[in-house]
């Protein structure tokens, strides 16, 4: 009964979505406010309906209802509750429902926080989002129904893939989708602006907080995915340039470019047309990612089970949504006026150079991901494009962008002076260069890449410090704390986010430069050492989990003679799918991770064991979280809080520095 309610709720949601997609946009075009006012209640109703459907599916999982085909395929009676619920998004149909549910969450949020928008704009935004959800609901109801029944009901479920039975599974997909799907808001804003023909700076101002929030979620989502792969897969890798990883990284790159481009359009009114195109691109890449993962067009470890019908449907959907929006762009964008002009060497110029580099990087990831498909389609052979390609191509494109990251925030708007910038930056450059060249030697090994990474990280931090110091000089206040507090949060946001990248770069550079790995065979009582650390293997014992049996090893770790920790890696067997899995044991630390992974049992209690020492690896994800924190700080800026409280248009508060410049 409950699954049927869920199914019916989806059908109703489709009807509401159709209404929401068509009437308000038409109403805005002809100026009919009755039709326009349909948008808000329609969006909220859709949210409630999809919430109901989601709840019904959750109930079916919680209740172990194996008469629902999807539940039988991805769950099991011995699966613990939290994983049964996470299994909702464990395969194709359920993850689509999650996609749609999160889309309705964003729609609902738009209805809450859009009272300051003109009616026509709001109607168009909700209308566009409604049209997108029509596509997903139609997709689910036609070829991917999560509520399809299995008659007769299966006596037992096929279980969730053991690799997914992990806390990471509970949180990574929802975070990722919040980001991915969140770009639909920026997309809807862009299309609304094109439809309405009004692409003034206000559009950018309204769009910014939505884009930044989505970007924060996506950053966290990707970081979590990477961290999860690190500890779950058992061989210590954290990024493989796998097509599905790339599918989430491309919207991130476009989104980062968009966040910067919106800043230019908001503050200076410049490059509106380019920002609109970026907004369309970011969400288009999200949709493309959805296609790539589910169509079977590329092999990936993350790919869902594929079906050509599904692939065709999504491709058609993609063609309509993206093709339609790019056609709208081609039609309307030429009519948008030009913004203010600025010199090539100016903050705007540098932000746009940042955009060019980020978009080129995104383009290369796309090229590398799709290239095997291109060649195969043209019958020119089958190749693989993997990490060696992406690493060789991505790094050279990003290095200039990272370098510019130090200069951009210090450059003046409209026209920057080179001698002035050189004077302010020469100290930072000197310090960065010297430290970058000498630190690796101090740490024990020198390679050009190591130095380059450290150079960029230190450069970003020193230039941020200079920027902050200059900013503080222009702010009134009696104490340092008072002065720091009066620097606007949007500035802190930028600073923190940029430093987050520096932290990330340090993590990547140090891990790649200094990580060590040891493959040993260990008898009980034997030790192995990496650097200062000694690992003693104290045998294994058999352990029984809720739905698995395992051999759990015990490793005592000591540093310079003192015992520091005990690690318990496991080799698990999940009987339902008869899969064996390695559960690595990690001792995380600020400066290093120790990672132990059991290989295979060899005769008389000995095991093959892999030991890793990974310095600074937690800085990789730490850096990502700091970046997201920066984004969160930026959104909590006073002007947005004031706007929210007063429900007024957000107007930037002029700073004293700006006033002094006018004089």
């Amino acid at each position, binding site marked *: 009964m409950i699954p049927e309610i869920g199914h019916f709720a989806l059908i109703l949601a489709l009807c509401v979505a159709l209404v929401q997609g068509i009437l308000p946009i038409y109403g805005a075009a002809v100026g009919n406010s009755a039709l326009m006012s349909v948008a808000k209640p329609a969006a909220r109703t859709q949210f409630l309906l999809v919430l109901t459907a989601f709840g019904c599916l959750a109930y079916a999982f919680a209740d172990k209802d194996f008469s629902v085909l999807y539940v039988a395929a991805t769950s099991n009676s011995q699966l613990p509750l939290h994983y049964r619920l996470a299994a909702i998004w464990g395969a194709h149909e359920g993850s689509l429902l999650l996609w749609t549910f999160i889309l309705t969450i964003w729609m609902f949020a738009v209805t809450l926080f859009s009272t300051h928008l003109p009616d026509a704009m709001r109607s168009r935004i909700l209308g566009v989002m409604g049209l997108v959800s029509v596509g997903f609901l139609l997709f689910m109801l036609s070829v991917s129904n999560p509520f399809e029944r299995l008659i007769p009901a299966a006596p037992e479920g096929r279980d969730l893939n053991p690799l997914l039975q992990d806390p990471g599974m509970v949180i990574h997909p929802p975070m990722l989708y919040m980001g991915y799907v969140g770009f639909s808001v920026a997309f809807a804003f862009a299309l609304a602006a094109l439809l309405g023909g009004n692409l003034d700076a206000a559009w950018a101002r309204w769009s910014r907080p939505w884009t930044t929030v989505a970007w924060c979620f996506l950053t966290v989502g990707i970081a979590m995915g990477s961290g999860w792969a690190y500890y779950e897969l058992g061989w210590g890798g954290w990024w493989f340039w796998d097509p599905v990883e790339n599918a989430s990284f491309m919207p991130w790159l476009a989104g980062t470019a968009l966040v910067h481009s919106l800043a230019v359009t908001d503050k200076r009114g410049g490059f509106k047309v380019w920002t609109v195109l970026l907004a369309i691109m970011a969400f288009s890449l999200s949709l493309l990612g959805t296609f790539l993962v589910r169509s079977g067009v590329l092999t990936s470890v993350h790919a869902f089970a594929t079906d050509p019908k599904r692939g065709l449907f999504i491709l058609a959907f993609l063609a309509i949504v993206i093709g339609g929006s790019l056609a709208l762009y081609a039609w309307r964008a030429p009519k948008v006026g030009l913004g203010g002009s600025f010199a090539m060497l100016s903050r705007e110029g540098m932000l746009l150079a940042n955009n060019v580099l980020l978009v080129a990087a995104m383009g*290369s990831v796309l090229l590398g991901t799709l290239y095997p498909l291109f060649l195969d389609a043209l019958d020119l052979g089958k190749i693989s494009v993997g990490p060696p390609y992406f690493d060789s191509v991505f790094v050279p494109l990003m290095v200039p962008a990272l370098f510019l990251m130090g200069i951009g925030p210090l450059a003046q708007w409209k026209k920057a002076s080179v001698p002035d910038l050189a004077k302010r930056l020469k100290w930072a450059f000197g310090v960065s260069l010297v430290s970058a060249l000498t630190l690796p030697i101090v740490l024990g090994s020198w390679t050009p890449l190591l130095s380059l990474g450290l150079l960029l990280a230190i450069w970003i931090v020193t230039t941020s410090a200079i920027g902050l110091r200059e900013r503080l000089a222009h702010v009134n206040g009696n104490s340092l704390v008072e002065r720091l507090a009066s620097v606007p949060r949007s500035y802190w946001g930028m600073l923190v986010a940029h430093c987050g990248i520096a932290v990330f770069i340090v993590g990547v550079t140090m891990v790649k430069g200094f990580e060590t790995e040891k493959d040993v065979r260990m008898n009980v009582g034997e030790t192995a050492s990496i650097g200062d650390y000694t690992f003693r293997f104290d045998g294994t014992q058999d352990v029984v989990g809720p739905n698995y049996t395992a051999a759990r090893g015990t490793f005592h770790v000591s540093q310079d003679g003192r015992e520091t920790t005990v690690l318990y890696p496991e080799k698990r067997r999940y009987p339902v799918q008869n899969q064996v899995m390695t559960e690595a044991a990690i001792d995380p630390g600020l400066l290093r991770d120790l990672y132990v992974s059991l290989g295979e049992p060899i005769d008389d209690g000995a095991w093959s064991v892999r030991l890793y020492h990974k310095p600074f690896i937690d800085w990789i994800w730490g850096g990502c979280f700091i970046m997201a924190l920066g984004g969160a700080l930026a959104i909590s800026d006073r002007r947005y809080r004031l706007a929210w409280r007063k429900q007024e248009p957000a107007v930037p508060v002029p700073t004293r520095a700006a006033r002094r410049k006018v004089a």
Partner: protein
Amino acid sequence: MKWVMLIILCLSGPAWAGEARPLADDPAAEARLKHLAVELRCLVCQNQTLADSNAPLAEDLRREVREMIAKNMSDQEIIEFLVARYGDFVLYRPPLKATTTVLWVGPFVLMAIGATALVITLRRRSRTVVEVSVTDEEHRRVEQLLAEGEKRS
């Protein structure tokens, strides 16, 4: 004699924490294997490198590569051996040939196109957008307004 046996037995029991042996018989060769295998694709578990995959074919191929290393074949020769049998698909680093020129050159071409487009657009724009300069009168008016605003806030 019994004495000596006893001592030897005591010394060789599990109470003595010995240093674990490396898994591989020849760590130097193993290091070379790893260096090669991380850039090779497992043909069965196609989303893992030859180094990480546990598929039987992967183990067989690693064994082959070890033998080739023992025969002192160069990296290039080992790669050619595998490509002759499995095609370019087995390489994670796409070889530079006529069909992959676009792949390797593309990103830098994109960057160049982007940079050129940026420069051209900015130059064109600075010619078409008319600069409106602010007169002294307008400057004074702005100052006045700001001063009033400060008084109020």
